[in-house]
């Protein structure tokens, strides 16, 4: 075991002297994710807020056919704009978020008490315009209801006759759960942090060591190869977990400065979040470390290893995408799947949902078992003759 520790200490010392590695694992890796996140959230929040307060800019075709409707819209903070020459084209080109078109027969139909035709021209795939369309539709609905009620009253009927149902929303989402939806990407950033943190060492200790031709002298020492590998894996994991720890701490600190309360959501980033996240990420760092070492040991050169590992970096995003596309109910088995378990656990922790200690333990145990499996596979690769030969 002593030799494994010797290898571990040497790898740590050597890599701490590499400025690029240190900056990547200890500064860029952990800080980039929270910073990108802060920027993202800030733009989102400010955009939402400014949208609600700003006058709704609305080009109208045929405004002259419905002066009363236009007047009502203007009262509700809608800025009526002159019509574009081609409404559909303007929306498609994103010159306008939406265009309101009033039929020439509007007044005729209105006076007869028939449904009067108006059209909202919009592009549903345009995320940006969705809020505006929603806002306009509400205004139009309110206008229609008001006038419908007036017509009923004029005929001596109660407007409530058209309201057999009284529907009220009782939203059960808590501020935390709404935050969780928004922050679904966060676990990926932590996992990515671990990946970036371990990457430099995984390559340096395998393909790099072989390329520098120092592996052959190293293997001539009276130490079994699995001990050498053990020390290297431990060093890789140590760097990865340091990145993850810094990443979590940075996020817990930065999270408090996010203007999340402005959109009515709150994050739970207390000590339990930090500790539990670290707990489930610990075996994952080891798993990623052994996976990276395994892949890098296969590679013939430093460059090849870098290419392979960059591709491997896409793997952790799979459960994130799956869970965001198919938001299924969290089930216990999910904790048993490495990567997915972390994803689910971190999301729930952040939302302040309960995660039982046994679920955390299951996540830890299964990921640790997978790490052990890949570590053994890496050790197996390490026994091969081909591995040591530099030239």
């Amino acid at each position, binding site marked *: 075991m002593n030799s494994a520790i010797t290898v571990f200490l040497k790898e740590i010392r050597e890599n701490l002297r590499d400025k690029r590695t240190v900056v990547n694992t200890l500064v860029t890796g952990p800080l980039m994710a929270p910073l990108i996140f802060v920027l993202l959230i800030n733009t989102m929040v400010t955009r939402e807020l400014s949208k609600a307060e700003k006058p709704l800019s609305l080009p109208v075709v045929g405004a002259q056919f419905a002066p009363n409707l236009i007047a009502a819209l203007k009262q509700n903070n809608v800025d009526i704009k002159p019509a574009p020459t081609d409404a559909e084209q303007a929306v498609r080109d994103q010159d306008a978020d939406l265009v309101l078109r009033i039929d020439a027969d509007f007044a005729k139909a209105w006076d007869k008490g028939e449904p009067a035709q108006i059209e909202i021209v919009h592009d549903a795939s345009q995320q940006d315009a969705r809020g505006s369309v929603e806002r306009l539709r509400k205004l139009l609905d309110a206008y229609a209801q008001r006038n419908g009620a007036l017509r009923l009253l004029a005929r001596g009927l109660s407007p409530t006759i058209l309201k057999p149902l009284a529907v009220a929303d009782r939203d059960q989402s808590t501020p935390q759960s709404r935050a969780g939806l928004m922050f679904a990407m966060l676990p990926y950033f932590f996992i990515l942090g671990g990946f970036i943190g371990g990457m430099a060492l995984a390559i340096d200790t395998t393909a790099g060591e072989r390329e520098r031709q*120092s592996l052959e002298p190293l293997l001539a020492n*009276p130490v079994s190869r699995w001990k050498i590998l053990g020390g290297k894996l431990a060093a890789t994991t140590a760097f990865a977990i340091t990145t993850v720890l810094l990443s979590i701490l940075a996020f817990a600190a930065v999270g408090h400065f996010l203007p999340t309360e402005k959109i009515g959501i709150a994050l739970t980033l207390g000590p339990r979040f930090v500790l539990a996240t670290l707990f489930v990420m610990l075996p994952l760092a080891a798993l990623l470390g052994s996976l990276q070492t395994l892949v890098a040991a296969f590679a013939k050169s430093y460059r090849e290893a870098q290419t392979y590992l960059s591709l491997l970096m896409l793997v952790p995003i799979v459960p994130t995408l799956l869970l965001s596309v198919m938001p299924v109910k969290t089930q216990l088995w999910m904790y048993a799947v490495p990567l997915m378990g972390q994803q689910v656990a971190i999301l729930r922790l952040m939302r302040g949902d309960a995660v039982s200690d046994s679920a955390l333990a299951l996540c830890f145990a299964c990921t640790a078992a997978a790490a052990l499996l890949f570590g053994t596979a890496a050790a197996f690769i390490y026994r091969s*003759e081909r591995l040591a030969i530099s030239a």
Partner: protein
Amino acid sequence: MIDVKNLHKAFGSGAKKVAAVDGVGFTARDGEITGLLGPNGAGKTTTLRCLYTLMQPDSGQILVDGIDAATDPVAVRRSLGVLPDARGLYKRLTARENIDYFARLHGIETQTLHLRREALVDALEMRDILDRRTEGFSQGQRVKTAIARALVHDPKNVILDEPTNGLDVMATRAMRAFLKRLKGEGRCVLFSSHIMQEVAALCDRIVVIARGRVIADESPDALRAQTGEANLEDAFVKLIGTDEGLAA
């Protein structure tokens, strides 16, 4: 003492199979310098790699101080000091740290380590570079560090793969003196070379290898007598039957 018996090692498979070592056998004795001489690609490095158990021979036996390399490779590596073809130092570590790293892997106590390191540093005259990072070392400085690293555990047997490769005249002379010193300490020194003068100047025994086979195993004088050539280089050329790949 190193005893190699009927060593075979082939690479590739099927039609592309190449026998790199094809029945090599020799003995390197304590207190002697044994030279493994042969043209490029003769199988010297592969033989040595089998010796320090980096590779497993397909068949044959290797005994180092009576220990079978196949049954106890770790013990064999413990009794060997190896300067491989690949010198590979750790660039971000100083020469001292490079030496200490290998010493620790051998499980040497701090106090012993200190004594051994100091003795080697004096013998190799490398005090001035000891605390410099090895990045930017000259070829000679690199070889010195690699040798100190290989010998810090005071091995009875020393294997060096082309130790004077890339060294200038002064460094080569210093290296020869150092090898003689190792011999004087009663160690078994085995080194490979493709350079005649070097082998002639140093060796008590010359093992000539060509195409994976031993074609002569004699003292320099016996070799000259056997081939009838007064000049050792001519003797060598006559032995391997071609002057192809013979670089001085």
